[in-house]
Each structure stands twice: as C-alpha cells, then as structure tokens.
C-alpha cells in the first residue's frame, strides 16, 4: 500500500519522466557518437557535460568553465530581474488604465496584441538609438517581451470583478481610489500572478536573447561566443542546462511569492484560475 503511494506520487512520476528523457538523450548521444567526427560538438553525453562542470581547467580570465558561465548568468539574471520588474509594473499600470478608461482600452488593446507580433529583436537598434546604452536597451527589450502576459492577465482579473461587487461599492458611494484599492486590485492579484508566472521564465529567455545583441557580459553573450567556437563546446551545453534551470527556478519563485502573498486567504480564487503548470 505504501509502495503504491510512492509509485503514484507526483514526484516519483516526474522523476520517471526525467529519467526517461535522459535515456532518450543518451540514446541519441550514442547514435551521434557513431556517425559524427566531433560528436561532443553536436550532441554530447550528459556525463560529459557534468564532467565539464567539475573540470578545474582555466578556460578564460582565471575562470573555469562553470565559473565563467555562472559569472555571466549573474549579469543576465540581474538584467532579467530589472526588465521583469519594469515590464510587470508597466503591464500592471497599463491594465489599470485600460480598466479605468474604455477609450484607453479600445485604443491600446489591439496594439497590445500587436506587440507580440513585432520581431522585437529586429527593433533592437532603434531601442539602442533611443537609449544610447546597450545595458538599458537590453533591459527595455526584455521588459517589453515580458509586459504582455502581465497586462493581459491583470486586465482579465480587473474585468473579473462581479457586477454585484461593483454595485456594492456604488451603494457605498466609494470613490474611484477606494474602488480600485479595495476592490479591483485585490481581485486581480491572483490573475496578476498567473501573468507573472508566465512572464518570469519569459524574462529570462528574453534577457538571454537580447544579450546576443552585442558582446559583453551575459549568458547570451557567452552563448554566442561559445557558438562561434574557440572555446570548450561544453560551455554551450552548460549554458543550455543552466538557462533552463534558471527559467524553472524563476517560475518556482513566483509560485512561492504567490503562496506567501495570498497564503490561505484566497483559496477559492486561486483554484478558480489555477494553471496546470
């Protein structure tokens, strides 16, 4: 009975899936090993990647490969964090404005959709021309890329306020400020978190993406360097694993933040718009 419980626990299932995924990886790596001259550049074994992490060999500037990757990851994380905060905040504010004024909503909503369609990387030089600073450009672009989920979800949250609740506040002749702080914003918090959970990993990948706009320090910069050869091919694979790990971690941070902020209070609401992931 106890064994059965363990066998069907979600942790166990996840582990089985990960093991399965790793076996597929290894099979493919074995296959590549047979047919390629330099297999570690195309598809290395997982073991090789882990070994490279432990490798004490100095590869650049007094750093081992993993030290180098981590230094760059820190820079990316910092920019992603700032971009995420700016993107989330402006998304939230825009959602409030759109809720506040139907005209603003009507004007902004189609363009909000449009933002997703713009190949923002192509517009990077414009952003760069305006900000005159590559660091700021990177932050702005990752902010723009993370802005949409927050704005769209928060707006959905603001609109989820029931007519009865609105009537209640009207019956108290509550002013606009009170209606927003005591009704609209608290109601939208679970939705805001849904948006934040989507955009946190997005901010990380966006930040890595915009790193590649120019050299310098950052996971994306290092990624393009490692792609361009001249250093251990495992740096590239370390970056892939680390960036996936950071993305997942950022999601977990949002989940924890949500739990802390909403604790047991909003169970009903949270369940109403829970996500699978």
């Amino acid at each position, binding site marked *: 009975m106890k064994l059965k419980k363990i066998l069907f626990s979600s942790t166990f299932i996840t582990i089985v899936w990960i093991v*399965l*995924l790793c076996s*597929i990886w290894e*099979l*493919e790596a074995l*296959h590549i090993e*047979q*047919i*390629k*001259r*330099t297999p570690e*550049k*195309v598809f290395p074994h997982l073991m090789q990647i882990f070994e490279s992490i432990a490798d004490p060999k100095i*590869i*650049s*500037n007094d750093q081992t490969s993993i030290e180098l990757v981590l230094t760059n990851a820190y820079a990316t994380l910092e920019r992603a964090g700032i971009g995420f905060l700016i993107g989330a905040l402006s998304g939230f504010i825009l959602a409030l404005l759109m809720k506040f004024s139907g005209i603003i909503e009507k004007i902004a909503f189609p363009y909000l959709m449009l933002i997703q369609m713009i190949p923002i*990387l192509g517009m*990077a*030089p414009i952003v*760069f*021309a305006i900000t*005159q*600073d*590559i660091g700021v*450009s990177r932050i702005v672009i990752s902010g723009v890329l993370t802005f949409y989920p927050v704005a769209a979800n928060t707006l959905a949250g603001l609109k989820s306020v029931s007519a009865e609740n609105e009537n209640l506040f009207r019956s108290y002749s509550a002013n606009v400020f009170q209606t927003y702080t005591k009704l609209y914003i608290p109601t939208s918090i679970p939705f805001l978190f849904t948006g934040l959970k989507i955009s946190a990993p997005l901010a990380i990948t966006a930040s890595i993406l915009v790193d*590649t*706009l*120019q*050299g*310098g320090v950052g996971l994306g*910069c290092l990624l*393009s*360097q490692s*792609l*361009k*050869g*001249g*250093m*251990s*091919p495992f740096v590239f694979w370390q970056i892939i694993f680390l960036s996936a790990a950071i993305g997942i971690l950022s999601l977990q941070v949002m989940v924890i933040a949500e739990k802390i902020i909403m604790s047991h209070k909003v169970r009903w609401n949270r369940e109403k718009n829970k996500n699978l992931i």
Partner: protein
Amino acid sequence: MLKKITAMIVAMGLVMSVSACGNTQVQTPTTPASDAAPAVATPTDTKSILEKYAGAGTIGNWGLGNEYELYALLAKYNLPLDFLSQDFTMDGFDDNSIGLASAMTYNELGLVKNSYDGGYNYGDTVAYIDMNDEGVAMLEDNLFTTKTFAEANPETVKAFVYASMKGWKYASENPAEAAEIVYNNGSSVSKEHQLYMAEEVAKLVDLSVPVGTMNDTAMQQTLDIAKQYVKLDDSAAATKLAALTLDDIRSQAYWTDIANAATFTPEKTDVSVQLKWLPQAQFMGYFVAKDKGFYDEVGLNVTIVSGGGDISETTAVSNGTVDFGVTWVSNLITSNAAGMELLEVAQVYQKSGLVLVYKK
C-alpha cells in the same frame, strides 16, 4: 502504456528520431594525410576546386556582409553566386555539409587545423584558396569614426590613431605577449587559440609598410568589388553606393606615421572604441595600446567595447554611443551608402584574411 510512451518519445524526441532516419552514410574520421600536397591551392587547382564545390552546392560563407569577396571570386570563374550559410562554427565543414568553407586565417582556419579546445584537428589534411592570390581581396579591419566627430575633435582622432597604431606595431612584433594581454582582458577564446590568432593577425598587419597605411589601390579595389557585388534593396542606397568615391569613405588627415614622434592636444580625452567582434587577438593592437600605456601617453582614457552582436559597430559609432569602431571596409561602404557618414582614419590589415578551406 507502451503505446503512450512510444508516442511521447516520438513527440519529445522528434528531432532525434527524425534525424536518425535517412541517416545511412557513416562518416569515417578523416585519416591524417601524409601526402605532401601544398596547403595553398595553386591557381590551376582553384578553378577545378571551385567548380567541384559549386557544382555540389556546398560552398559556405557567413553572409551578413562577409560574402562579397566570395561573390567576386565565383564571378571570376563564371560560377553561380550561391552559398550556404555558415553559422560561425565549422561544424558544417566538419560534417561535410559544407565542402568549401569560408574561414579567417587567424580564426576558423586555426580551429579547423588544430586540436585545442574548440578545434577540429584536421592538421595538414586541409588546404585553402587565398583571396589575396586570386586578386579579389577586400580590405578588412580598419579604424573609423564619424565625419562629424573627426571634424569636431581632430586632435583626439589623431592621438587615438597614433597610439592605436603604436599598439598594433608592438603587438605584431610581439604576438605571444599580445596574446597574453588579450587573454587577460576577457578573451572569448582559449589561450592556445589566442596565441595562434595573434601570430596570424601579425601577418595581415604587414610591418613592411607603416602601420595603418591606407593604400589607395587596395582600397579602390575594395570599393570597386563592393560596387559590383553589394546588392541593396533600397534604391536610394543603391544609387548612393554607385556614386561613392574614396574621399567619401576615408581621410588621410588623421593618420601619422608612428616612426615620427608626435604630441597631441585632444579635445575629448575619454573615448571608446567598439570592436567588430568579441574580444580576441584580432584586435590585439588596441588591447596592447591600452595595456602598455600608449593611450595614456597621448592623453586619452580609452574604453574598449566588445562587438559581436546584431548591433553592429557601424550603428554604434554612427549614433554616437561609441567614438571609434573597427570594421571591414566593405561594411563601412554599405553603411555610408545607407546614409551614415563614417570615415576611415586608419587601415590596420593590409591584406584580406579570408580563405576558402577544403579537405584535400
């Protein structure tokens, strides 16, 4: 259950399972050749080699403004101007999807030949076609700024050129030390490759002429090839390109032969230079000038900015984010055709570093 797992595998390992099918030819690692065929193709070979790979459709180049010399070479032998995109690694060359690959003598060629980190260890089993031998060479790494900046800060520009060329001379005479300096300044490549690169770059700088010399004949050839092979979709830019003269792209006024001692009174003392690529020995002269205090001597405080991304050095210089840049002359030409006002102030490499490498 089994079915489900299979389906999952199919979906998740889509890439892998699909790449596995249709894979019948197993490549045997190339055996190190003991034949003594020369590393550089002779002109008679060139034609047959180009025809062979053009026929197979496996000539590679990076594109993105690096393809004009290749176009000129293909046109010279009446071959179609087609190439595959190389992704800045030599993996395509390694797995034979690219038979005749573009390579810089100081970078990719070294990776192909050598066995250090990132290398492919082909040793002497590869040979190459040299653009300089074929008469289709274009000038590459130079030093440039904007016309406005140069006119407003002539002494700064002169001082920067002077100190930089001093750095280049020192670096080219002492490549091992230069490699070490670059490596300590946040290099993007391994130590061994850095040394290889420094030695190869020194050959391109050509110490038989004063460092930074702008040779009008070589530059005119570059401009002529660009006019012929650069295709611009914007008709306004295309018209402008056709009308460009040497005076639109370079000025001799800011270059001084470093054999003569000189002093400067820079108008602006804090300046920055953006590289065309990631920090590596390709730009060793600037790192050396900074490290050896040559910039301090002329009263400049220089920041070296890494390149190597989609925001090109021409854009950064043009919009004033940095004061100087390092680019290829062809890139400067297309930028000016598009409306920038860039001005070359020194020519660091006197030869083209581009070769086409193939397996013997």
